[in-house]
């Protein structure tokens, strides 16, 4: 059973990892990823994260199911925040648990690449000066990163 949540509030990465491995003695490797809001050299006051309620959770679920089909995972968690997020704050959390490190690393890396290109979230920048905010453009890099996993 994977943990999948979209929420406006912050998350506790340590508590999520503890829940993932609680009572288990067969997990040998846990990889976590935390994505944070950068201030882009002081240019950024905040990010606004918009998402497609319902589909966001469902799509993350499909991405997690794909990861579970590809690697022998003993647990996985994805938490993605929505709403206004200030520089230094956490945006996204991914955790994977497996018997061995190669599967845990690959699955976490894959989850992030697929979330970036498939999960219906959009970032708008609120600049530190009074200028108008702008929607972040999708990166070709992210598409290429996701294509690494094509079968």
């Amino acid at each position, binding site marked *: 059973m994977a943990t999948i949540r979209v929420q406006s509030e912050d998350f506790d990465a340590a508590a999520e990892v503890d829940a993932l491995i609680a009572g288990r003695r067969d997990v040998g490797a846990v990889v976590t990823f935390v*994505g944070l809001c950068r201030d882009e050299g002081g240019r950024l006051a905040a990010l606004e*994260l*918009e*998402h*497609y309620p*319902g*589909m966001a959770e*469902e*799509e993350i679920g499909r991405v997690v199911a794909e990861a579970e089909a590809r690697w022998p995972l003993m647990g996985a968690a994805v938490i*993605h925040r929505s709403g206004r997020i200030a520089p230094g704050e956490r*945006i*996204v959390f991914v955790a994977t648990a497996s018997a061995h490190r190669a599967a845990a690393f690959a699955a976490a890396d894959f989850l*992030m690449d697929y*979330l*970036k*290109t*498939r*999960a*219906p*979230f*959009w*970032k*708008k920048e609120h600049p530190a000066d009074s200028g108008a905010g702008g*929607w*972040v*453009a*999708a990166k070709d890099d*992210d598409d290429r990163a996701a294509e690494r996993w094509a079968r």
Partner: protein
Amino acid sequence: MKAVYFAWVRERIGKPEEEIAPPASVATAGDLIAWLAGRGEEYAYAFEQPKTIRVAIDRTHVKHGAAIAGAREIAFFPPMTGG
């Protein structure tokens, strides 16, 4: 069917969602984008680069060639930038 819009598609159209009733000749997601683009200048602006627009039917990503028959909710949005 319900059309829903996100990010700058939503901002350009000026509303998050609406009921639409396209004619029977509108068969695919791509047809629907072209039909919506003809509904007014805010729609023309939102859909000025049709290839950029991503579509989800009933909360599942689809290509522009996907049939819309039977869809309850069709979403239009820019490429995703979460994570």
